[in-house]
Every structure is written in structure tokens, then in C-alpha cells.
């Protein structure tokens, strides 16, 4: 049970404070409700590039990192399709520096041309390092546009292509900041050995006079229902063939979400899971095989991905995946297997409460989803899932016309 206090500042900033007396560290998390799904199709990768620019100095603080390091702090950030998240940890004695830093970059950025020039380059190197210069590194760049034809999930957070990053202009930076980086579009979480009332005072002091931004309506094209199976084969200089399968699934807040997640666990969480024990260990078709869900806010993807053992026929191996999926559609899983995946969930939820920063991040994300309290009743939703629920999901999503397949063929 994670207890917290929630406040709403006059300018629309949500503040959540969680007290944990066991740690000398304070975690501060600022979530902005903007991600790659909010980008224009011709200017992709922008939310993530912008995240880099948030470290390029703000109106009153030329360098973000230096003052934080000076008080023993450390920070980082990530961007995904749905949101952008900034987080830092520091010794609790110096908590006020975190308020000073985060409020100043919410108030106004420095918009330094040098920072834009350099960070464009840094992000292009990130693009190469993570997506282009690794075996199978471009899988998501290929799979997303196969599975999504309209919805902005069709591009990765890094962007569709390097030229989109090269072409980013300062005017784009400024208008993006003006639209999204406002107190009423942000959630501030503070977790550690802190007094909530004192944190509220600090928040009023540093964030209270930041003006609200204009309200906006999110206008995201929903993905039309897929009507036929899609396939893409690519030849690459990779050592072995690989399969990536994507099935459309529900939204994060849909009542079917928890059963869908358990379904992926039945297939692939742990070495006793079905895909691993049957197709990796017993039949030796794959060297690795995973099933997982993207868990996005809008309709997401249920992914199955595997690397084939040398000399195994790709279609034959794929057929064996279908056999496993078919079993989930025809038979209801037994009580022990269901209990097993529920125990795994219970355990991973408990383990996620050990680290103060993880707790701060999870509180912010749940509040973004609608209510930070969901962090504490998540387990109940999982415990309620029945074997019939899981069978229903399997029947619903494991259909050829709901499926997109990417095949990597190793060039000899």
C-alpha cells in the first residue's frame, strides 16, 4: 500500500506527495502529458528531441545539471509515445534545489540555438546507436508502420527517419513548449522522507506563480480496424532469422487490459511459460521467444517475437507458435497456471515498491492515467481475472486479420 497526499495548485499543476521514512533520498518526478503520439506525421521524433532540449538551460539557470550535481543529485528523463517523464533523486536535505530547477524550466526555457544544434546531433547519434547500428535494431521502425496505418503509434519515439530530426526548427521548439509544457499539463510527484504540508508550501512557492497554458483538445486519429493479415520480409546482415508478430489489443484503461497482460504472461513470463518451455526448450525451434504487451494508453499491441535456431524453417517455426495460440483459444487454462501468473504479478508489484524513484514514477503515471490510487488497487483487477476471460481475449486478438508479421531473413 502506497499512501500519498494529492493537491491541485491554482494554475492546474497536480502535486502528489508520498512519505517514506526509510530512505535518505528524495525522488522528484515531473510528468508532462505529451509524447510522440502528439507529433505531426512530418515532424516525428520531436517530443523526444524536445526532452533533450529541456537540459539546455532555462531562463534563470544557464545549466540544468550543474546545480543539481552540486547538491549531490542526479537526473534523467525518457519519452515514450504517450508522455515525457523527467526525474531526479537527491539527498533530502537539498530538496529545494529540485523545486528551483524544475519550476524554472517549466516557467521558461532559454531556447539556446547552440543547444538545438548540438542536441540534434546527439539524437541522430542515438538513432544510429540504438536503432541502426545493432542487429535487429530497426525492428520497431518497421513493425509500427505495418501495424498502424493512421494512428501516430505508427512511428517510434526516436522518429520515422533521421531527416525529421535534422529539420527541427527553433520555431517548432517554441510552439511545442508553449502548447505542452505548462503546469496544467504536468504532474509533480515528490517521494521520500518528507512532510507533505512542507512540500505543498515549496510547490506553492516555486510553481505557484507559473501561468497556466491554454487548454487544448487532443485530436488523435484512431486506428481503423485491420481487415487482413499484413506481412513484411526484410533481408538484413543478421546472424539468424527472426519473427516479430503484432496483434492489436485494447487500451490501457480498458477492462480487458489485465486479462490481456496475464495472457502474455502465460505465454512468456518465466521459464515455465508456454512459449519458452514448448518452443525454446522442448522443440528447440527458437533461441529466444517472448510475448509482451505495449500497454499504451490508446489501443496497443500484443507482440510475439523470436529468434530462430540455425537451420530451422521459418514457416514451420511460425506454425508452432500458431499451435500454442490456438490452444489458448480452444481450452480454458487450469487454475494452477492462472494462480502462477497472478503470483508473478503480485510479486513484481511488491518488488516495484522497494525503490523510491520507481514509486514516484508509478504514482505519476497512474495519476496521468486518471487516478494515482490505481497503483494500490491494480492487484485486485488482476486477481479477478478468470480463465474464461483469458480465453475470450485469446479468441478476440489471435486472428489472422488482426495480425502483422515482420520477418528478418539473414543474408548469407
Amino acid at each position, binding site marked *: 500500500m502506497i499512501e500519498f497526499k494529492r493537491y491541485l495548485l491554482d494554475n492546474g499543476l497536480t502535486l502528489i506527495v508520498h512519505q517514506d521514512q526509510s530512505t535518505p533520498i528524495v525522488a522528484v518526478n515531473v510528468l508532462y502529458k505529451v509524447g510522440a503520439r502528439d507529433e505531426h506525421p512530418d515532424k516525428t521524433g520531436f517530443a523526444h528531441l524536445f526532452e533533450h532540449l529541456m537540459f539546455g538551460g532555462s531562463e534563470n539557470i544557464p545549466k540544468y545539471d550543474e546545480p543539481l550535481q552540486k547538491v549531490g543529485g542526479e537526473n534523467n528523463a525518457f519519452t515514450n509515445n504517450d508522455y515525457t517523464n523527467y526525474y531526479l533523486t537527491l539527498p533530502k536535505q*537539498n530538496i529545494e534545489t529540485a523545486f528551483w530547477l524544475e519550476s524554472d524550466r517549466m516557467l521558461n526555457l532559454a531556447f539556446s540555438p547552440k543547444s538545438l544544434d548540438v542536441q540534434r546531433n546527439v539524437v541522430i547519434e542515438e538513432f544510429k546507436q540504438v536503432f*541502426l547500428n545493432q542487429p535487429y535494431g530497426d525492428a520497431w521502425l518497421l513493425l509500427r508502420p505495418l501495424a498502424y496505418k493512421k494512428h501516430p503509434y505508427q512511428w517510434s519515439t526516436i522518429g520515422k527517419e533521421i531527416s525529421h530530426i535534422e529539420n527541427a526548427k527553433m520555431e517548432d521548439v517554441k510552439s511545442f513548449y508553449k502548447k505542452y509544457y505548462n503546469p496544467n499539463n504536468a504532474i509533480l510527484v515528490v517521494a521520500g522522507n518528507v512532510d507533505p504540508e512542507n512540500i505543498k508550501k515549496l510547490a506553492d512557492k516555486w510553481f505557484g506563480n507559473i501561468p497556466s497554458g491554454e487548454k487544448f483538445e487532443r485530436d488523435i486519429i484512431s486506428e481503423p480496424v485491420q481487415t487482413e493479415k499484413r506481412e513484411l520480409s526484410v533481408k538484413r546482415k543478421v546472424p*539468424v532469422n527472426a519473427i516479430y508478430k503484432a496483434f492489436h489489443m485494447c487500451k490501457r484503461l480498458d477492462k480487458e487490459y489485465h486479462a490481456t497482460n496475464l495472457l502474455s504472461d502465460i505465454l512468456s513470463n518465466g521459464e515455465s511459460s508456454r512459449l519458452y518451455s514448448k518452443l525454446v526448450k522442448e522443440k528447440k525451434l527458437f533461441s529466444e521467444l517472448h510475448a509482451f504487451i505495449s500497454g499504451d494508453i490508446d489501443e496497443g499491441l500484443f507482440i510475439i517475437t523470436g529468434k530462430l535456431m*540455425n537451420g530451422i524453417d521459418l514457416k514451420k517455426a511460425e506454425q508452432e507458435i500458431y499451435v500454442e495460440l490456438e490452444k489458448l483459444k480452444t481450452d480454458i487454462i487450469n487454475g494452477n497456471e492462472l494462480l502462477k501468473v497472478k*503470483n508473478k504479478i503480485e510479486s513484481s508489484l511488491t518488488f516495484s515498491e*522497494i525503490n523510491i524513484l520507481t514509486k514516484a514514477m508509478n504514482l505519476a503515471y497512474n495519476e496521468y492515467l486518471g487516478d494515482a490510487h490505481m497503483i494500490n488497487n491494480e492487484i485486485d483487477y488482476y486477481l479477478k481475472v478468470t480463465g474464461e476471460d483469458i480465453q475470450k481475449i485469446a479468441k478476440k486478438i489471435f486472428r489472422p486479420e488482426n495480425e502483422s508479421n515482420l520477418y528478418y531473413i539473414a543474408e548469407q
Partner: protein
Amino acid sequence: MIDRTVQPKLEAIKSLDYTHPVETKLKNGTPVYHINAGSQEVLKIEFIFKAGHYVQPKKLVSLLTNKMLSLGTASYSAYEIAEQIDTYGAYLDSHIDKDHASVSLYCLNKHLKKLLPVFHEIICKPRFSETEFKTLINKTKQEHSINLEKVKYLAREHFFTALYSTNHPYGLKLEFDDFDKISLEDISEFYQNYYSLINCKIIISGKFDPEINSLLDDYFNGTESFKTIPEKHFDLISPKEYKIKIKKEGALQSAIRIGKPLFKRNHPDYMQLSILNTVLGGYFGSRLMSNIREDKGYTYGIGSSIISYFHSSFFSISTEVGSEYTLAAIEEIYNELKRIREELISGSELHLVKNYLTGQIIRSLDGPFALSDRAKMIIKHGLPFDYFKKYVQEINSISPQKLIEMANTYLEKDMLIELIVGA
């Protein structure tokens, strides 16, 4: 109105308070370190053996032995083990390095009693099945072939050879035919020699009943006779080649490593050199990051580190840069090394690094599993448990003069190995 141009008053942290492990023993004499911390009802039990690369008779033996432990035991098949672990929501983790092998169980306290029988067999009664062994070899070989496509992996492997040579276990590099030279007998013999409870240390961390040893005593009570294995010894050999270029066709980025072998972890200069390393490349605001990423934009990241094994440590700068920036990046790295050898670090930069490092130490000791990792480091290198208190004292007292002296003693350009993997 608040003045946003002024940083709030900061409080320097001069001392450190953290939970030391409590040293206990099982009835059979195996040392057990208890770290009772945190507020969640979870725990981790880690068994650490001196069964790493250093003592293996052939390449791959230490790795595969470690992995085989959970692939079948006297009374459980590999699948049954996995099923037990998964059913109780637990996790098994195995790890191998140059000197040590370890096996850890993570679980909720309420399931520990159910899990001990199977965890005991993993440690004490592995079955070493031929079928499992073949599958494991093939999987490992395939993972190796995928790794060979990564410039970062190639740089890492070749750098070890450059540092220590192939005549020392730290410098051995995996080749494809190594997979054909190893048999199940090698594994079984290695296990017999190096996985005795006498050759083992246990760390328990989490929030647990301090009487937990009595539970372990029911299982880990082996009084079996064991052979004393003679300590192996290999002389460290000085590097022979200082400029190495490895060709990787079609690479969009080059992986760069620049560094050299150093002393053992307990050397008196270790802490001071470590502080210098932080200035150079040990944090986001470091000289290397500020110049090569934040000013020039040649890379997504660059850093330097000192990595320690039992018999030696090494210093290494590492990065991946766009192929077209390879030479420019290397030039800037040498410029930063020259600057750190020739110019005294300013008071404000040193002040920042001191506070940053102290904060890092506090973070690295936060929570039961973080404490367990730190304790493992201490135990592996035979350091005192108040090591981090001493480190904070050293950080507080170090001077710019001392740092420049360290730079000139250890970071001379012509003593550094330079390795590039790229197109």
C-alpha cells in the same frame, strides 16, 4: 517575489550512515551476511562462489556450469524447477564474472519455505543432463553470433585481450570453436571442485526474520568431504600493442576504448584515482561528456570508469561515435586527458564533484538490494565494511594537487591502449 537566479541554500553531506551486514555462520561453517533493511516483505539470498573465469580449465566452463545449475537437479527437471520458481512468484538470477559465480533467489517472504527445497537442489544437487547441456550450448553459441554484430561487444572483448593478453584468464576472448571443445564432464568436474559450500559466501538482504539461518541449516548442511583445490595463479602481463583497429564492415558508428590496466582494488591510490575518474568521465557533467557530447555532439554518450577484478583493475574510456567523427573524437579525448594532467582543477568544479560523488554513494546504499550489491563488492575484494565512510572522508579531504598528481602518475598518454572498432 522569489529570486529565481539564486540556487537555494545547499547543505553539504559530510558523513554517512548505513546498515553494515551482520556476519553469521551456518552450522556447517558457511559465512552468511545479513542485511536487514527496507519495509517490503521481500528477500534475496545470494550464494557467491570463487568459480569465475580465473579458475576455469577451459573457456566457457565457468559460465555454463553456472547456467546448468537450474537446468535439472536430483529430484526436479528443468521444467519443474522453472514451474516451482514461477508458481511462487520468485526469480532466479545467476551471474558470472572474472573471479566469481553467483546464484540468487528473490522472493516474497511468505513463499520462502516453499522455495527452499528447490533452491537447495539448484546449489547442491544439480543433475547436469546431456540434453539440457546441448540446448544450452547451442543457445549460447547463437547469442554469441548475434553479439559479434555489435561494435560495442567487439570493442569490449578485444579490449580485454589488449589489456591482459590471451595468456591471462582476464584476457581470453571467446572463439566459435571453443563451443566444440567443451563437454559435460568439464562442467561436472568444475562443479565438484568449485561449488562446495566451503568455497561459498551467502548474503541475505531484505526484511526477514533474523533467525533465518535455522531454516537454511535444514538444507545447506553439507558436511561432504571436498577436495582442496590448489589456488591458481597467473602472472599479469604488460600490454604489447597500444594502437588497435578492428574492422567492422558497414558500421555506422565506431566503438572506441582508451585505457590501461591498473592496480588491485585495495591499492592506496584507488579512491583518489576514482575521484579523478569522476571528474574526467564519471558523471553526466564530466569533462568528456561536456566536450564530446554536449559541445560537439559526436556521440549519444561517453564515459570513463575504473573496473575492478580481484587480481587487477583497469581504467577505460568508452564511447560509440558516428564513423565520420572517429578521429575528431579521439583527438578531443586526448585533449581532455592532457588538460587533466596539466591544469589544476578549479575549486568550484571540485566542490561540485565532491558533492555529486557523496550523493552517488548515498544512492548506491539505499534499500536492501542496493546494500547487498555494495556488500558483495566489499566481500569480493576483501575490503572493510566501513569502506564507504572512509571513501566519503577521502572525497571531503582531497585537493586539486593530489588529483593532478594522480593524473600524471596514471594517465600518461603513451601508456594508454587505444582501440577502435568500426568501418
